[in-house]
């Protein structure tokens, strides 16, 4: 029933507009969707003046009028020379039965084997440069970032941009079919149609300490560590030493918060002799500045953070709550790991002075940060805590059901896998309606937010999708109540762990076992604590008035927790010759995506119960907000009923995946020590 519903809904929205021609702000707005052209669909280097973009987002939109965007930024996804080959290679390096298992590449090798051809790359670079735009590229030659004033962008893309009213809020978009003035090997362009609010941080913030009416204080990292046996790994000597965990930043952080976090919560670990050690991380911000900047480069060092404020950059640049969660959870739970915080910043990028309700930096630029991580090849692990509806990412062709292996996200995560970098992505906080997030608005162009769908990039084949549970534990990490799916029992339908079936992404070969259904990607893969009711402590803006400690939940908590646990696994691998011997290159301890290892364990009747706790209770249904179409922000009048969502059950289920890993035993099961 659920699958049928998904397909029916997908079909309903897969209506492509057919009219074409460039237009201006004077084009008939009404319900006209700018024309689309067939995409390149992954073919090798078919130069074309057209490209794929998120045209469907404007379906049913109303043209509201001109928009003043100031500086614009788009990401240009090049046609790869062998997009399917990249996907195949990514699958092989994660398959123990393959001769390529853990034969990881370098960024340069990625570029030369799979990236755009030099000719295509250079042609595109020359085109945008000639248009007076700032262009940034990376070694892997996959994505090209283009930044410039609105007028130059309009000239380069052969269209003007206007403001549209969507049911999910305003967005800017082209008034005519965007195109190049000459053929380029460009596969797709993101942020031609855009609203920053479509990018969801998968976190739920609880008011910080000192705010009224209630003090809310989350679970400190030691208690999470004790509950899920990070402590056993610490005692065995695995604390993440020498492992680099990358955070794809959704906004700025302030390292002083982590200092305060450690100090206030006495963060650290106990070694095997019972001796306490304070955390000993290094947190390094890596600015996504690219390596091939043209015209001065659009990427710049982000401005310093400010205290809580409302106003334009750079004067007002408050810390990002999500980014603080990610950083603090990974660092504290992998207490000797190095944290690389990736942050991209585009000066003066705004959504217009009257429509600047989006984040300041980071969240719009996450793909650029991922590109930087691929380019640098320094992070062994990446933690991502954001998402948007899979139909509105770059995973599908315009029919929204056909997988696009040359899409920006499929390519970048396949590249990360080819480098051996494990990626953990939050599965979303809107339960079975992972794309809708009804309590915080609706997705772009969604006919009805009351539909099951999954969040991207958690849906990717080359990432580990991390869901969430409710984990009632006490100060000593003891379980004081049943562990359940984060869902209706605590959120009463307003939030739940993302989980469900993809409509486009094929089920990867490694995802097999009891309870796994269909031919598409099932998610999540595994889970950790995420329920805001059992949320974790977070320090935000502690150096500024109005800041302090609070609590946070959401799968944005679970993803960095899982990333930290995997850092302990890699630490163990580094210290185990037999494990390192299975790898190759400069990072022989890397294992790539963790999900294949998870499912290998899942299908081992001995290892599974000794590694994962199966979550068998709960449901990830959410309360739809369809009674208020077009609502942006918290749903003021949600539906009185809760959609059923998916039930947790024995073995794999679409709420918590295969369950909750426990650190020390995960190391034993994966590394054998």
């Amino acid at each position, binding site marked *: 029933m659920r699958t049928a519903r998904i397909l029916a809904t997908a079909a309903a929205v897969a209506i492509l507009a057919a009219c074409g021609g460039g237009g201006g702000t004077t084009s008939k707005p009404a319900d006209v969707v700018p024309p689309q052209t067939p995409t390149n669909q992954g073919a090798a280097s078919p130069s074309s003046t057209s490209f794929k973009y998120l045209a469907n987002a404007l379906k049913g939109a109303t043209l509201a009028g001109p928009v003043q965007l100031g500086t614009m930024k788009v990401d240009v996804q090049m046609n790869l020379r062998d997009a399917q080959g990249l996907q195949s290679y990514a699958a092989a390096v994660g398959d123990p039965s393959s001769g390529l298992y853990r034969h990881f590449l370098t960024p340069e090798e990625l570029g030369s084997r799979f990236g755009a051809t030099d000719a295509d790359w250079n042609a595109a670079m020359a085109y945008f440069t000639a248009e007076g735009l700032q262009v940034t590229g990376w070694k892997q030659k996959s994505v090209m970032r283009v930044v410039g004033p609105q007028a130059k962008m309009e000239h380069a893309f052969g269209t003007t941009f206007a403001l549209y009213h969507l049911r999910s809020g305003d967005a800017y978009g082209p008034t005519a079919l965007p195109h190049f003035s000459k053929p380029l090997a460009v596969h797709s362009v993101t942020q031609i149609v855009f609203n920053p609010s479509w990018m969801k941080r998968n976190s739920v913030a609880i008011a910080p300490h000192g705010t009224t009416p209630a003090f809310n204080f989350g679970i400190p990292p030691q208690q999470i560590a004790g509950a899920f046996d990070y402590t056993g790994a610490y005692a065995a000597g695995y604390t993440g030493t020498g492992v680099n965990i990358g955070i794809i930043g959704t906004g700025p952080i302030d390292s002083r918060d982590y200092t305060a976090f450690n100090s206030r919560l006495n963060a650290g670990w106990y070694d095997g002799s019972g001796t306490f050690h304070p955390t000993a991380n290094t947190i390094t911000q890596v600015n996504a500045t690219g390596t091939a900047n043209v015209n001065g480069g659009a990427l710049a060092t982000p401005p310093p953070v400010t205290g809580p404020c409302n106003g334009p950059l750079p004067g007002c640049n408050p810390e990002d709550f999500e980014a603080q969660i990610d950083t603090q959870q990974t660092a504290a739970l992998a207490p000797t790991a190095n944290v690389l915080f990736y942050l991209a910043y585009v000066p003066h990028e705004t959504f217009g002075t009257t429509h600047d309700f989006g984040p300041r930096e980071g969240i719009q630029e996450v793909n650029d940060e991922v590109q930087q991580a691929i380019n640098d090849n320094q992070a062994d692990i990446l933690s991502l805590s954001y998402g948007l509806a899979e139909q509105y990412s770059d995973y599908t062709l315009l029919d929204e059901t056909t997988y696009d292996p040359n899409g920006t996200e499929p390519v970048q995560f396949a590249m990360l896998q080819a480098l051996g970098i494990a990626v953990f992505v939050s599965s979303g906080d809107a339960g079975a309606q992972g794309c809708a997030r009804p309590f915080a608005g609706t997705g772009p162009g969604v006919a009805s937010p009351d539909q099951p769908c999954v969040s991207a990039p958690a849906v990717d084949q080359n990432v580990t999708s991390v869901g969430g549970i409710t984990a009632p534990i006490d*100060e*000593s990490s003891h379980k004081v109540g049943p562990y359940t799916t984060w869902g209706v029992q605590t959120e009463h339908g307003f939030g739940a762990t993302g989980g469900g079936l993809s409509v486009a992404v094929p089920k990867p070969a490694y995802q097999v076992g009891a309870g796994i259904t269909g031919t598409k990607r099932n998610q999540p893969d595994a889970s950790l604590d995420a329920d805001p009711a059992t949320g974790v402590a977070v320090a935000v803006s502690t150096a500024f008035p109005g800041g302090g400690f609070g609590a946070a939940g959401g799968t944005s908590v679970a993803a960095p927790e899982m990333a930290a646990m995997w850092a302990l696994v890699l630490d163990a691998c580094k210290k185990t010759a037999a494990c390192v011997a299975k790898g190759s290159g400069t990072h022989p301890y890397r294992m790539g995506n963790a999900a294949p290892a998870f499912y290998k364990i899942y299908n081992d009747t001995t290892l599974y119960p000794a590694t994962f706790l199966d979550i068998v209770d709960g449901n990830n249904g959410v309360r739809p907000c369809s009674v208020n179409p077009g609502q942006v922000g918290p749903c003021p009048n949600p539906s009185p009923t809760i959609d059923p969502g998916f039930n947790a059950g024995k073995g794999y289920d679409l709420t918590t995946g295969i369950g909750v890993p426990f650190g020390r035993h995960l190391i034993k099961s994966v590394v054998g020590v």
Partner: protein
Amino acid sequence: MGYRRGAILSIIALALAGCQGGGANPPPFNSGNPAPTSATQSQTVSPSGGSVTTTLGTETVKVIVPGGALSGPATVTLTVYAAGSSPKTLQSSGRKVQTIGSGAALVAAFSVAISGATLLKPLQASVTTVAAPSGSIFRLAGYGTAFDDIDTATWSGGVATSDLNIAYPRMSLATAPAGTLYAFYTEPSGSASAVPTPVLTAASVTPNPIGMFGTATFTGSEMSPNGFPYLDPTFAYSLSDPTLGTINASTGAFTAGPIDGAGTVNVTDTTAGRGNPHGGGPISVTSQRPGNKGDAFNFTGTLSSTTQLVNSNPTQPQTDTASVTLNTTVTSAQVIATPAPGITTVAHSDESDAYPLQTVTTSSDTGYGYLTGTSAALPPTFVPGTVLMTETLAKDSNGSSYDTQYDVVHGNGIVDVLPEATGPFGPNTAALRYVETDPANFARNRVVAANGSYVEQGTDAFHDVQTATVNSDLSASLDARQYSGFRFTMSAPSAPPNSRIIFRLFNAAGTQLQAFSLPNWIPATLTQPSMETDVDNGSKPYPASCSVPAKYGTSGNQIVQTINRADTAFGNLETQTTTTYMAPRVGPVCIQMTDAVQTFYDFTLQNGFVVLVSGGTLPIQLTNISETLTLQSAKTESGTTTTSIARGTSSGTRATASVPSSGFAPVSFARARFNHAVREKLGGLRKATFSHSFGNNGVKQL
């Protein structure tokens, strides 16, 4: 020195070995003379007395059986051996040769056997003979293990009869060692051998060492050095060291004292004229002290907990089961003088709880005070022998530390004593202080009174304090204003019928925001926050779930402690049962602990950003915790033993005694850990993360 031979007096030459007379045992004496002859006479003698007379040649020997000497009709057999002449060498068959002292002369040799009844009084013997030479005296000797039992016989009218009032009056003839030959002889006056000192002993008792307050009856035994028992001594008993305990002077009934010690139970024959011969027997007392340095115990078992939501959002039961190993070593035992005379003992325990998904280890040090004297600083119930579990300080692998104090300041110090004194709690009470410090700077401090009422203060990393209070009348409050801005109160249950509890919510200003009238979930039998019963059920088979090693037998004394608690602040109704099986001579070999909890208020937020209260009889959550620990091996300071962990279990049971000695410790360790596990499951309010609109709908009645 010569000896007389008269016409009547026949010197009985002792029989040669192997020569038979009248079917008696082989003649034990060898005089070197020609093969002796013998004459035997058997006579049935009634308990009222009688005699048996046997004549061989000119000598007639008569054995007199006094009235009351026999427990019933008996056959008394008297064998007289043919006398020979010199030499004066007596040789017992298979034994050493004994030469009669110079000048002595054998008069008659005989043996006595009694069958069919028990000899209760000594016999007398006489021999018809002639008068000894002037200056000589008659002696009666026996040849048992040594020929040195000498008594004086009185000669009168041709009959020499064993004396009644000198060294060995009423010496039993018949109960002497088998093969004993008696002989009358004479020796010159003034040459009589010194009367050997009788040997007095106190019968050994089992067990020895004896445990604190253990009882045993010592029985004196008086014999000649040759092993001839005295049948009617009057013994008086005493102790070489009065701290060993007490002993009944006339019956020898001993009750061990409370402290370690070793000494002697003295026994004296106070029969007039005997010179108060005395002797004694060793006694060693082992106290209730938890153990001596170096003692070690190894227990294994399982720890299981099951949680299930049954009301708001029902779940399946979720069970987590760990394999447990508990290794305890006594690290020190020191004598102290203050605050009271006693011994302090510290035991270190390492417990490993291995769950399928993680292993939690806990190291703890437990202190015991063992009183050997009294102190004005202590309650009068703290008599010598009291064992106080003063404190357990533990830390687990998650970095949490917990300190449980049972000392006299915070508790009554007694963890378990049987039998209970009068009253519902007896000497045991719920009093204790519990301090927990968690790795993220959380702490809580609970002080529990004797009846289970308590005050707990929780402190977070910001030093905010919340206070939970449970009162004696079962009313309660939870002041979380510094955490959440709210305060809860729970009234004492109203009187039946329709007993209710009023659950109220107040804001920081003290304004009541909500009030719920809830059915009283506290059983009427629970009249205070904690009540305890202890029952000694006597010997019971070990349950199969204990898997007690065969070396500890199949049954043991079953002690059942049941504690019922109502935590009216957090809404927990709890029944905790500890069943201990005490193996005879071993101590606790299996400890089974269960704790069943029904939770009627839910502050865990696992049901959402609200506090739930049950509006009916159905609780919100069920929590069951159980642990079984079974003794696998033990080592005392003297080495490994597989049969006893105890230094002095007084008996196999605790029917009248406190927990046996070192067996006490493992029970305490286990219970301390278990109680912590229970507290963690019922920890209550970790934090107060309530809904932003808490004031209006933060509490929801189911």
